[in-house]
């Protein structure tokens, strides 16, 4: 006999742990401490908390109801953050839309999520106007005063005199609070649905592993529509009382100037941005001595850059963060002291994450060194893809989330990412990571950009094809490139053909569309 127990309302209120609850706790602890600065506006924790309530009440007053989807189409700003926090407070589901998307992709995300409201920057209003007739949106508004004059303005609501007590909405930790659309290089974007519970679990992991504390002064420069800047850095640091300076793009001279002026202690960006900072003349002119926590992700930091950073920022500590939207997104971390021995690893699973490398198509463990697919179990994981039950089922096959990343583990359990599984070429039954071939070709002085794909081949299953953009003034010489590849790669990895193009097909977020290339070169 198993006795059941019911939770009384009092218990449910006492134990609730939504994102709105977390913000209120931070405000209760340090009401006057500065939480967020954008341009010349500084929001204390208390102001942020009250403003989130005003925006939440404003949205509800305009007819939005619990569970409605609210699209946010804007660059980083305080209003962007406030809309997100207000959605969490009001029980609305926030749908970030990459501001690089236009036309079909913008329409797709708004309509697939069934967005009832859309808020955008004035600078992006024209993109919205262009597709407005195709959208099911009922309520339009702006993130920055001025745009779409007839609509609601988030900043005005935040700074206004509206009701500042939290709205009376029944919320639970299991309510969906955000739908994060994956970038979809191989198919239509899928919306990873996150609950308060999954995101709060992820924030705890980040606080535990990334040395984030209330003493931090962070610079948030990467887009907040992306889960890394939002859920690995901004939100965990708002949970522990830190200060965040927000800008809308990682422009090197501005970043370097702000680190000096604002005494920034922590900064996240992909390796390419770090390299850009190192190459900027201001790097040595600015006082960067406050910068201690150096975070990167999305790809490995080239080893010479690890050494250069250690030399030029001797107080700095490097963290490599790996994951994906579906896991909110942190899954593994390579901590500072682990960089010396394994600079190309993305580290080991976080405390709340179980990670395995399995033979693709099975749940059999790979041996150390053997390549397979990364699968995870964790409370960070999304609960489903929005309105895609089959894709959800497929992704969670066997009770593990299938990442789609090809990787291997060393004897100590450190992970090394090889490629996206869909970008692996199967040549004569041997799997070749397109990334390996691309890296070899990048070593040739004529190559500006390259994409390596597999095209169907009757004898080899797939044959390796390189599609190359040459640097200005350089000759397009296929034989020279193949020769170069032979010197750096095992024979089976050498491209069978090289095609030259003016530009590679990319989506508006700048992500390479290998799917298009495969269709184009399949014969």
């Amino acid at each position, binding site marked *: 006999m198993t006795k059941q127990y019911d939770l009384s309302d009092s*218990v449910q209120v006492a134990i609730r742990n939504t994102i709105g609850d977390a913000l209120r706790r931070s405000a209760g602890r340090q009401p006057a401490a500065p939480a967020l600065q954008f341009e010349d506006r500084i929001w204390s924790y208390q102001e942020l908390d009250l403003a989130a309530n005003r925006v939440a009440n404003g949205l509800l007053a305009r007819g939005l109801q619990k569970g409605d989807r609210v699209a946010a189409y804007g660059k980083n700003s305080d209003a962007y953050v406030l809309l997100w926090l207000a959605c969490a407070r009001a029980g609305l589901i926030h749908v970030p839309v990459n501001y690089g998307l236009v036309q079909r992709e913008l329409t797709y995300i708004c309509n697939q999520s069934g967005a009832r409201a859309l808020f955008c920057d004035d600078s992006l209003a024209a993109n919205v106007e262009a597709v407005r007739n195709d959208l099911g949106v009922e309520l339009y508004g702006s993130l920055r005063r001025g745009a779409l004059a007839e609509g609601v303005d988030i900043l005005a609501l935040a700074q206004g005199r509206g009701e500042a007590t939290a709205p009376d909405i029944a919320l639970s930790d299991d309510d969906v609070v955000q739908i994060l659309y994956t970038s979809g290089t191989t198919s239509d974007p899928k919306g990873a649905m996150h609950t308060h519970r999954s995101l709060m679990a992820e924030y*705890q992991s980040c606080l535990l592993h990334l040395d984030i504390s209330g003493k931090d002064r962070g610079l948030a420069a990467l887009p907040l529509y992306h889960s890394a800047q939002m859920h690995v850095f901004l939100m965990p640091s708002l949970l522990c009382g830190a200060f965040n300076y927000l800008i809308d793009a990682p422009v090197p001279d501005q970043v370097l100037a702000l680190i000096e002026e604002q005494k920034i202690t922590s900064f996240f960006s992909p390796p390419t941005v770090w390299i850009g900072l190192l190459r900027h003349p201001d790097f040595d002119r600015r006082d960067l001595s406050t910068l201690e926590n150096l975070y990167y992700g999305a790809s490995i930091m080239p080893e010479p850059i690890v050494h250069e950073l250690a030399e030029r920022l001797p107080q700095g500590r490097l963290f490599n963060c790996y994951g994906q939207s579906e896991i909110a997104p942190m899954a593994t971390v390579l901590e500072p002291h682990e960089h010396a021995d394994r600079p190309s690893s993305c580290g080991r699973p976080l405390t709340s994450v179980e990670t395995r490398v399995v033979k693709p198509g099975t749940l059999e463990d790979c041996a150390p060194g053997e390549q397979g697919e990364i699968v995870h179990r964790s409370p960070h994981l999304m609960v489903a893809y929005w309105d895609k039950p089959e894709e959800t089922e497929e992704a969670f096959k066997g009770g593990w989330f299938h990442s789609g990343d090809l990787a291997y583990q060393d004897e100590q*359990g450190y992970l090394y990412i090889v490629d996206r599984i869909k970008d692996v070429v199967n040549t004569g039954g041997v799997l070749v990571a397109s990334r390996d071939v691309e890296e070899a070709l990048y070593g040739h002085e004529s190559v500006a950009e390259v994409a390596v794909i597999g095209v169907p081949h009757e004898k080899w299953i797939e044959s390796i094809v390189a599609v190359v953009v040459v640097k200005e003034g350089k000759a397009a010489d296929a034989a020279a490139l193949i020769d170069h590849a032979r010197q750096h790669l095992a024979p089976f990895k050498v491209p069978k053909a090289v095609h030259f193009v003016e530009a590679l097909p990319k989506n508006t977020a700048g992500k390479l569309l290998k799917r298009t290339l495969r269709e184009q070169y399949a014969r």
Partner: protein
Amino acid sequence: MYLTQPLHKALRECPEREALVFADRRSTYRDLVRQVATLASVLKDLGLEDGDRAGILALNSDHYVTFVFGVLWAGGVFNTVNIRWSPVEIAYSLDDCDTRILFVDDEFVPLIDEVRARSKSLETVVYVGEKTCPEGMLSLAGLMAGTDPVDDAGRSGDQLACILYTGGTTGAPKGVMLSHANLYTCSIGAVMPACRGDGVVGLHSAPFFHVAGVGLILQLTLRLGTHVIVPRFEEVAVMSAIQRERVVETFLVPTMMRAVLAHPRFPEFDLSSLRCMMYGASPIDSTLLKKAMTAWPEASFLQLYGMTELSPVVCILPDYCHSDAAYADKLMAAGLPAHMAEVRVVDGEDNEVPRGQVGEIVARGPMVMRGYWNKPEQTEEALRRGWMHTGDAGYMDDAGYVFLVDRIKDMVVTGGENVYSVEVEDALLRMPAIAQCAVIGVPDEKWGERVHAVIVPAGGAEISEADIVAHCKTLIANYKCPRSFEFVDQMPLSGAGKILKYKLKEAHWGDRGRRIG
């Protein structure tokens, strides 16, 4: 969130790391997981179904840790029985939540006949001792030998993980229901603010039946650390275990810390491996802290404050308050609210009082219990308006530090145990020679507070202290029995005829700012 997750991780990430060290037994995480999965199988064979309770009455050992995870792995709910209780109280707690399987070690075998006689629920007693299995009990070793491991039942989130008994204001103990998410979230919050690294060696000497013991097991397992276990706190056992195993972190209440530092054999041991000293139950005074910092110059210090209903940690006094002179005035604080905990000080109507003003400390957050087992009214009372009422009186300073000053509940905390006055008073009043009585906590060098009885004898009868203690021992646990007495002709009474305990306390606590140990 599920509490067995670290075991699955350990199997992948560090199967050969030592998990448990007890006496001359050592086991790796691979061994531990196999034992846990086998124990789970044994429990299922014994009839344990999803959500059923299984109890343990034992001193600390490696088996205890295996039991806790084994019950969870089997899909059960563990009930760790207070080892200081009388058979009457033990039987009450087993029956209250229908615990039918009880594990027992050598220390408590002698109590079992009486517990069996008094309990209606208890069906199966499993022996986890080191000798031959007594008659009428099943030997765990024997059961495990013929059993194959099973898969993890996979309970998680809001499902119950344990029921832990705590004293009740109305006399009867209450079963505090904690879920997987309660304990998991609280454990992460407890390890967050300190340098409590991964894979370290930790020593347990706090009793595992207590919520602090359970919490410490989880906090270390979460980081895939090595558990070094001694059966109970004893100075030499603790010091030799630290030296032998190069222990990095441990938890000692200040009275224990004082006992270790003052022990004549203290200089013989090399305790230099200690890096993290946690304490709780009472603040550390600056004299003791100075001594401890001299003894362990490399160690950081951390105070944890909480209660069973809060899984248990809700405030933490960080290391910098101990090492940085600028925070000297915070040393007497219980700490800052832990991550995910919201703490307030309120008046009798649950309105927040201004900073610095004394009121009741209340808390909310994901570490708040799911309620008291089968006691909806008491759950509602404790959690009224959505806040857990701690029963502790205190204030919050401008920087947000929580300071305790007194107790609102009529309760004595002695040696880390909660003793509700009403329970002791009930026992006393069953003695015909006692007309009136009041039980209060008075300061005590060793126990923090001591159970003290103020008694009005019936018709001027002569009563001996020894008789009273003997009488009480037949009804309540040893530690609840009064340790000191005061015989008076009459009690100080309020206009309504209520005994004014604060007047009785005044004589003992004088003008100290804090009236709790």
